[in-house]
């Protein structure tokens, strides 16, 4: 039977706040899986902790709701052991760029073929709105006792610098565009990163849906225009086409410069893509030629309850 979009949804009650930006992301993710025709038992959604961590329970594929900050570690282990499955890791910006920032950087260096989506809202929602790593210095969302004393992390810039080979940004209220970005990210050969701007209607009273849509700008200019724009509507070319150092450096630099744009104009779309960097599986097959045909999860390790691994050569070399 042909799968339907509804097959990718569970009947678990979704307890996110009304108006939460997370809904758009989970919808886009379900739509992307459906569109790509990925069977539900061939994909695993790994999630971190916090509101976004519940995502895996709403999607009717394998779902692994892990620990705060550690989602990438579980996801990479799963993908390495069973490279045939589609792996998407999701989590909040506090999860991925605060407690989990070390794993974020290390994952970039490996370039394992999977996708990481950060639900980026500037606050720790589930613990009542503390400042998260993407909140800007001096900003004061409504439950902060005083303005934020830390500078923000630049997720796109950090991803580019860490070695992610696909780096993009989406907006949770543009579900169709976000779906397209997720499809591109999943199809990308290597580690892809999606920073999704996601208004928290309960705790972030600065970067609201109205703010992103430029409602305040409209008051000043009498002309309504969204802060969000798409890089693909400009002449921005994110893709590295040749392995040459000059082009790579140029594409990395322009992505970094673009990532600094914020305020009245906020770019979305693909910032950087480089499929010429070897994915981790290639680095493994270079030394273990049959890794992809016979990965850990597929290996037969016993015969009638007895081991079938033959270590006699090693043992003989230890003979005295």
């Amino acid at each position, binding site marked *: 039977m042909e799968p339907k979009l509804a097959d990718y949804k569970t009947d*678990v009650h979704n307890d996110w706040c009304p108006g939460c930006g997370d809904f758009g992301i989970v919808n886009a993710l379900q739509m992307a899986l459906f569109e790509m025709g990925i069977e539900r038992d061939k994909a695993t959604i790994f999630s971190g902790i916090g509101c976004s961590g519940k995502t895996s329970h709403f999607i009717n594929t394998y779902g692994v709701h892990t*620990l705060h900050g550690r989602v990438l570690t579980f996801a990479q282990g799963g993908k390495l052991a069973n490279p045939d499955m589609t792996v998407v890791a999701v989590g909040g910006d506090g999860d991925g760029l605060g407690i989990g920032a070390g794993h974020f950087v290390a994952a970039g260096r490996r370039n394992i073929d999977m996708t990481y989506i950060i639900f980026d809202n500037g606050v720790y929602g589930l613990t009542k709105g503390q400042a998260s790593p993407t909140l800007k210095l001096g900003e004061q969302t409504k439950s902060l006792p005083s303005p934020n004393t830390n500078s923000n992390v630049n997720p796109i810039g950090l991803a580019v610098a860490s070695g992610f080979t696909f780096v993009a940004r989406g907006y949770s209220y543009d579900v169709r565009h976000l779906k397209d970005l997720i499809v591109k990210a999943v199809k990308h050969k290597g580690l892809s990163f999606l920073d999704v701007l996601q208004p928290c209607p309960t705790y972030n009273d600065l970067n609201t849906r109205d703010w992103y849509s430029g409602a305040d700008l409209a008051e000043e200019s009498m002309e309504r225009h969204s802060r969000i724009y798409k890089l693909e509507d400009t002449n921005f070319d994110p893709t590295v086409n040749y392995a040459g150092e000059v082009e790579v450096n140029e594409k990395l630099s322009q992505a970094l410069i673009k990532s600094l744009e914020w305020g009245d104009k906020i770019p979305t779309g693909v910032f950087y893509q480089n499929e010429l960097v070897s994915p981790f599986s290639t680095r493994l097959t270079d030394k273990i030629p049959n890794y992809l045909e016979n990965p850990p999860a597929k290996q*037969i390790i016993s015969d009638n309850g007895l081991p079938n*691994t033959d270590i006699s050569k090693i043992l003989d070399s230890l003979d005295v």
Partner: protein
Amino acid sequence: MISTDFTWLIGGPQGSGVESGANIFSKVCAEMGYQIFGKREFYSNIKGEHSYFTVRISDEDIHSNVNAVNLMVSFDAETIFRHFDEIVSDGGIIYDSKLEDVTTDRVNTLDSPFKDRLHKFLESKNKPFTIAGVLEVAKENGVKLYPVSFKSLLQTLSEEVDNPRLSGLVRMYNVLGVSLSLGLIKMPSASLVDSIDDIFSKKPKIAEINKQAANFSYNYASNNFENFNHTLTGVKKQSDTILVQGHFGTSLGKMVSGCRFQSYYPITPASDESVYLESNEILEIENDRPGSTIVVQTEDEISAIGMMIGAALTGTRSSTSTSGPGFALMTEALGWAGINEVPVVITLYQRSGPSTGLPTRHGQDDLLFTVFAGCGDFPKIVYASGDIEESFYDTGNCFNYADKYQIPVIHMMDKFLSSSVVTCKKFNPKKISIDRGKLLDKVEGEYKRFAFTDDGISPRSKLGMDNGVFWNTGDESDEYGHITEDPQIRIKMMDKRMSRLDLALESIPADQQAVPFEVHDYTIISWGSTKGPIIDAQAMLKKEGIDIGFIQIKLLHPFPTEYVKSLLKDAKVLIDIEANYSGQLGKIFKQNITREIDYYILKYTGRGMTSTEIYNSLKKIVQNTAAKREVLSHGA
């Protein structure tokens, strides 16, 4: 009756080839039929600090080091300053004659607490603070001195083989020392050359000059050194004997048990295992294409355990290997594996804590921490091996426990085991069985990963399997794996998970839970690597007509209370032996068995126990002159 019991010591600055020297020596002796028990001691340092290797050689099975050293070879002053007093009265010291004038102040790696003690001692003997001074003390004790100029040895050799480069190669001093030693004890040198080829197999040129040096110095010792009291000319070889390093048991055990994913972060003394697994990552499989172990060096231990769990969820037998500080970082995720019923094996090579502690030294101080690791109540198995041979088979058992009970297993090893080099019976892979428990091959119909069942264990799907979709969460969950906070489900889920502890106790065979080595009025309880020195001390006392019992407890959690009770019913005096400060097994024992421990023999210097030390303390206990806590301190 042991007719040969000989201990050889080689020392030198770290990076000077002490370890390869000891490996050559051990290999040669093992090839001549002797049983070997070797142990390496070293500082947390790359180059320059003092490291040494003791190799005990016997024609009978031995399981430990002893205090006495029969022959020491040294090409540096520090080794002599630190070990001269360990040489027994008919023993010998081979040393570089140029060292005689070296004063203690010239050796800047001699730390002041040690130097102060040595100076006081030399003052009391009226000797100068020099190598000549300490050697005089040794000589007065009956030790034979064999001075030799390492430099002129090389000089003469280089002229003989017409290779001027040789004369300056101080890196060969280790091979000179080994060969001089072998020549002195008249060990047949047939296998010396082969052993050098083995050690330098990747550098044939270096092997060649080392072989020349070895033969030359072997002959030099035979022809020039005056007679020594010990000659070791070889004994009948025992069949099926291998010479193994400490981490070979768990590494080879993992390969055979079907562990196909290992993640780790570098830490002493655990990383050798992972490096060895990666060096042998492609595996030969009977009647099938090659298999492989994916070994991933992660960014930290948190990532190591996270990746291992992720891999285990795909149905892959997965593992990580670490030491105390790394395990401390893993405890949050350990609880996740517990609540999600994920079978994983953590090999815990303990060292001496707390914190970084004595990072390259031995300790068994993580028992209580391991048993109680993680927040909340969840089931786990804590299992300890007593020697390297055992650790091979135990690794197989640990993976079976993990799969059958769907819980994390912590397999406890330690630095004493990891830096030993021993002869033992060749491992037999067919004695390992593979039992994956309720791991499914296929799913039909509706599937619930955490379904309530009669035995408390649910059939297990794996990520990516047809129709087997499930969810995991670190929150409490329902049968599907979705979050719940329902109080009634909470009770059922907690009961379901925790029931595995009883199930494990009921179904793990008794001989895997604890091993009695006789039970007498005086009986020892212990765990882990103290096994070797304990059974050797037990044998020494038996020869004097003193019977001491010993129960080796392997399953530390859940604690086999009833079985241990039944074993101990005739024991009147209980002695707990452990390499930690507080007698941690004793605490678990008292909690479960509600019986007092009469004596503790403890050691927390970071150096492993010798059978001599245990023998001495046990003797005091039997003679009723021991303190309640006997604290051991042998070893530099």
